[in-house]
């Protein structure tokens, strides 16, 4: 039987090709198309820098995803720790030699492109932890040693990102890590206690926040306290979404973005623009596409044989879901403003690269769903 499976797992190229999840692929393509159209709109109805750059990145990274999906999932398993360490190194490099833009050191210059290692870390922390828990016996999951070790794995990159400073991304890294811990079967009581602890220590945390971050929290609680200053983004964003109505103002007709009332419309607030132009119906369709994508990811996880692949797919799917929820809640005024991009839709190479690597690994889990990992 072992022999049989082993044999079966040595799929030919064409078999692998046939095993690709075409629903997921087409959903990603549709999303890519939507994001390109939206980017075109942010450029004011012209093909300018953002549209072109986004298009190129999407094409390159999408092809890369296809390539990754043909690589055996075992390879990714074996790469788990190494990639984590490499990204960690890049983060340390960023802290020391990173490019400073708008007050924080987030990028490293790789000559042909600037890369944001913190975005990559969002994916590779899942990979690393999934590998860590794959090997672990069920009874050891809740052992003191494993909890400590996994927490270190989470805290080191998180703190490296915090000092950039980039609170948003570091929180997303932490969430990605915690999601893996939860799926790995960490006892519920730990989550309960840590939630309790963080609520109690909330005042202390707030006292550690930077002034602008405190302002964001205050603004979230009451955006009208400074409508032209700190509250401007969220107020304008809500106006944009709200004025979209059921059917939206129409493609390229979003006055809020066209007349430059919207801040950060290429990146964090891209959904606002989309929602203004395509309205409630368009937004729900977009959410539906995301829902299908997440469903497909989880389905691939469910169909995978290996625990590693399952853990990765579930965690990755959940993380993507959380990124989307955080971004949309922020844009719709349900959460304070934290810098978090909308996967695939937002402009940004590193985010797209990380997401596409994630999808690639998921796709690889699909094409190698029968692969068991020792």
């Amino acid at each position: 039987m072992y022999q049989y499976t082993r044999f079966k797992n040595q799929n030919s190229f064409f078999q692998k090709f046939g095993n690709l999840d075409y629903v997921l692929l087409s959903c990603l393509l549709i999303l890519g198309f939507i994001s390109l159209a939206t980017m075109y709109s942010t450029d004011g109805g012209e093909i300018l820098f953002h549209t072109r750059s986004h298009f190129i990145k999407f094409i390159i990274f999408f092809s890369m995803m296809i390539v990754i999906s043909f690589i055996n999932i075992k390879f990714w398993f074996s790469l788990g720790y190494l990639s984590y360490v490499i990204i960690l190194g890049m983060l340390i490099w960023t802290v020391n030699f990173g490019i400073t833009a708008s007050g924080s050191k987030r990028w490293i210059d790789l000559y042909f492109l600037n890369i944001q290692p913190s975005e990559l870390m969002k994916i590779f922390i899942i990979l690393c932890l999934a590998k860590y828990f794959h090997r672990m016996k069920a009874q050891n999951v809740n052992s003191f040693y494993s909890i400590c070790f996994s927490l270190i794995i989470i805290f080191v990159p998180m703190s490296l990102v915090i000092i950039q400073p980039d609170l948003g991304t570091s929180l997303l890294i932490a969430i990605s890590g915690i999601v893996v811990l939860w799926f790995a079967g960490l006892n519920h009581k730990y989550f309960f206690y840590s939630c309790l602890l963080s609520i109690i220590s909330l005042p202390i945390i707030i006292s550690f926040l930077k002034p602008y971050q405190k302002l964001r929290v205050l603004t979230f609680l009451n955006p009208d306290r400074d409508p032209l200053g700190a509250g401007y983004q969220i107020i304008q964003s809500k106006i944009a979404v709200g004025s979209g109505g059921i059917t939206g103002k129409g493609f390229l007709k979003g006055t809020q973005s066209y007349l430059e009332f919207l801040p950060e419309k290429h990146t964090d607030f891209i959904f606002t623009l989309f929602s203004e132009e395509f309205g409630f119906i368009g937004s729900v369709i977009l959410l539906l596409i995301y829902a299908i994508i997440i469903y497909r990811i989880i389905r691939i996880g469910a169909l995978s044989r290996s625990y590693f692949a399952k853990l990765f797919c579930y965690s990755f799917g959940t993380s993507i879901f959380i990124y989307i929820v955080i971004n949309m809640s922020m844009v719709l005024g349900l959460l304070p403003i934290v810098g978090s991009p909308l996967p695939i839709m937002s402009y940004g190479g590193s985010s797209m690269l990380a997401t596409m690597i994630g999808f690639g690994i998921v796709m690889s889990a699909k094409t190698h769903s029968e692969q068991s990992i020792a």
Partner: protein
Amino acid sequence: MINISDNATKLNSLNRRMFILATAKIIILGGIVSRLFFLQVKENKKYLTLSDKNRIREWKLPPIRGEFQDYFGNTIAGNFEAYQLHIIPEEVEDFRYVIYRVKELLGLSEIQFKKIIKKKNEIKPWETLIVADNLNWEKFSKINNHLYDLNGVKPVISISRDYPYKENFTHVLGYVSQANENDLLTNENIKEKFVPGLKVGKTGLERSFEKKLIGSNSVERYEVNAYGRRISQLAFQKGDKGETIKLTIDTKIQELANELLKEKAGSICVMDIYTGAIIAMHSSPSFDPNSFVFGISQDEWQLIRNNPMKPLVNKSLSGNYSPGSTIKPIVALSALENEIISPDFTVQCKGHKNPLELYGQTYHCWKKEGHGFVNLREAMKQSCDTYFYEVARRLGVDKLSVTAKEFGLGKKVFKDIFDNEKKGLIPNTEWKKNALGRNWVLGETIITGIGQGFIQTTPIQLCLMTAQIANGGFKIYPKIVENNDNQYVDKFMPLYKKARNIRIVQDAMFSSTNEVRGTSYRSRLDDPKYQFAGKTGTSQVKKITERDRELDLKTFQIAYEERDHALYVAFGPYKNPRYALSIIIEHGGSGGTVAAPLAKELFKMIVDRHEIRKNYDNKKYLDI
């Protein structure tokens, strides 16, 4: 290595947790959709309004100001097309080059140039910089010829105030200038219609009729971006021009008044004695109101302000003068009405050697030799002071003040049309007690009888007084703006007790102008068509001392500030009176020699113009 059961526990736990999370995800997704629903469907209207508020901005354009016309429909304050030069700095590639080129072409001085640069630094780069607000045609066409070289410079034709008759109507109309903070605070209309560069009335009728004149703004609705830059025009709503206000003034007579008062300080008022229409009202010296439209230069302003003849004061309305002998018709009338004297009442005027003496004070007649025995008619004709001392003494100041007030002295003639109009002062015993806290003395009554002392009148009041005597003693309400409303129920109410008394005074005034030894005999017009009746007045600016009396200096030998004011009131034509006038020349000397000759010139024209005015009226009715 991993045993199967262990793996199965892990997978079980994993799938169970996935299931829990999937449920949570669906709930959260539902939450987001409901939030979207709330914002986009339920609150859509609110946010749509907010979005429009964001993107649509209105620009008000200056309204076009209403015009003033004289009686014959000639525009006396209109609008003209001012040639302006605008630059929008961001549309200019090389601002430095262009601005220096413009400087060179217009020949701007360093100071002007610096002002423009300062203004440029204050505005946003997409806002209009007005480089020149009123260019002459020569410079404007010069700029137009060099436009190929001046990228971004816009020659603009804008509407601005114009006073074609320059200084002729200055005190009646006032002038317009840039609205300042004070205008905005005091006038709601201006506040509502304010746009930078809006010009509003500062004095005169321009100010009091602001509400009617200002018109309404044209509104341009633009789509703007977050930085306030205009993207596209959405709508243009044309405003209404302000109302045209028609005055009763005859420009020709007004011009003549200006001509006659040239180089002199004083005022001329001409009034229709039946309608109360002001035919002319001029205060001299005047100034050109056009200089204020684009802001007056400091030098020019200082010149006007420091002129000893006070061009800024509207002497017709706010000049308080002792009426001098021009009050005598009222004194005589009051005495007749109160039956203190009869027309035959006679007083002996003994001249300077034997003046009237009362409680140690002496009261001289103006004539050194005295007039001898004079009755009312003679006294008025020769303006005998001694006679009126006696009449005033018998009459008492309180009775006199009642008659004077009835005939329009001591109160504003034009209610509230002119904010600079003065009330003048008609004293009585009560007034002095209240105002000065001292009792009235008889000597003050005596000098009031010849229009000296506390008594103060404005030229327009004297004109009204004369008009009401001339029309047979009926109340009229002067007006300067043509309107058909008969808002006054007591119009043409008799002001006399006996009509005969009015005729006696009219006759006395006739004698003063048309009979030998009358004070204005030399200024008479013999043709009955033009013949007028009047009363001269010479009001002292300072008390005449014994020394002055001995020196008996001629007017030109006295310092300007100490010379007497020359006054003259008259009405005509005598046979069938229609117009009354008052003339005052500050520090002019004697009323008979300086003021009365002007009346001669005026009446010639007034009577001639009357025909034209009547024909114009008839034609107007025919047109209907």
